């Protein structure tokens, strides 16, 4: 039985969908079968990031309503045969989501795939609860920025009370990804350090991703950044994917990656 991972955040725009696309590919490159499901109904985006928007015929609601089979609706990745994608519906109302139908969809997926990754809608309304309800694991994506961190904590609170696993007396695994770290700002004390963030949120750190201009270019083309071998963010996603597949990969101190910034050089002169 595969592991079901919900990728969540409190506030929108922190890079959740980008994370889902890259982790999906990263896991597929590790040789594991992986299905990505876009749960952001009405605001489908994962198809664009994956570059698969032209191949979507059926979406998740078609499958749940029995209008298409899972096999018909899943779109195969262009770059790796281990990766499949199920689109969110673009038109139907969010109220079509029923727990029993979602459970069936997720159970069917976990029979076939080693990893099932759910891209949660932003915020903590409606669709969010459905995304976390049947997840074994939650990955919380934050930016090193106050509103993102505060909202993430609220999302974790709701996860802890609405998850079926928690209701059954079991534990939902929770991991943190800190995205869009700007090393030079951390070094000058203008941006929260990763250690501060996981101390505040009190969950296990899964990885740190530096801000990377290449992300926009990657989205423009529909080629996730993990496919770019010269990208720091892409490398970070490779490490995180390997960790999710059970490999012991040490956390890289992303904050010091550009350690020879102008401030350090000036400081160096006076040493």
């Amino acid at each position, binding site marked *: 039985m595969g592991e079901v991972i919900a990728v969540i955040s409190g506030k929108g725009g922190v890079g959740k969908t980008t994370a889902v696309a890259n982790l999906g590919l990263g896991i597929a490159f590790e040789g594991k079968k992986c299905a990505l499901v876009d749960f952001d109904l009405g605001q489908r985006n994962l198809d664009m990031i994956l570059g698969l928007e032209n191949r979507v015929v059926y979406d998740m609601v078609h499958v749940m309503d029995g209008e298409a089979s899972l096999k018909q609706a899943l779109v195969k990745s262009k770059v790796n045969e281990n990766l499949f994608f199920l689109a969110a519906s673009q038109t139907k109302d969010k109220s079509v989501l029923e727990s029993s139908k979602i459970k069936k969809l997720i159970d069917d997926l976990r029979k076939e795939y080693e990893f099932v990754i759910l891209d949660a809608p932003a915020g903590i309304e409606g669709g969010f609860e459905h995304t976390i309800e049947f997840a074994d694991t939650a990955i919380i994506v934050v930016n090193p920025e106050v509103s993102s961190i505060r909202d993430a904590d609220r999302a974790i609170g709701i996860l802890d009370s609405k998850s079926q696993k928690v209701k059954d007396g079991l534990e939902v695994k929770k991991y943190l990804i800190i995205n869009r770290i700007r090393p030079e700002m*951390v070094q000058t004390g203008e941006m929260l350090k990763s250690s501060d963030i996981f101390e*505040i949120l009190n969950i296990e750190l899964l990885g740190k991703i530096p801000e990377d201009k290449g992300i926009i270019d990657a989205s423009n083309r529909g080629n996730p950044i993990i496919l770019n071998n010269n990208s720091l963010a892409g490398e970070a996603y490779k490490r995180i994917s390997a960790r999710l597949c059970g490999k012991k990969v040490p956390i890289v101190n992303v904050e010091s990656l550009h350690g020879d910034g102008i401030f350090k050089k000036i400081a160096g002169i006076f040493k």
Partner: protein
Amino acid sequence: MGMFDFLKKKESSSVAKDRLKVAIMTDRESTKANFMMEGMKSEIVEVVRKYMGVKKVDIVKEVIDGMDSISIDIHFEPSSH
């Protein structure tokens, strides 16, 4: 410590950390209280419904003379007989 350190503003990252700690602590308490209230409400409705029709249940938490108290108002359907 340099002699002009007092001129330096506190780093904004540590200001953020302090503010977040306080804000999150308050948020967590209210989230917890909300879930408690929700749970309590639905159980009360279940119990009262065995005996009479319930319209709604209001739970208000307040502090009276320095004592924490909870008042529960049950609005029930008027009986048909």
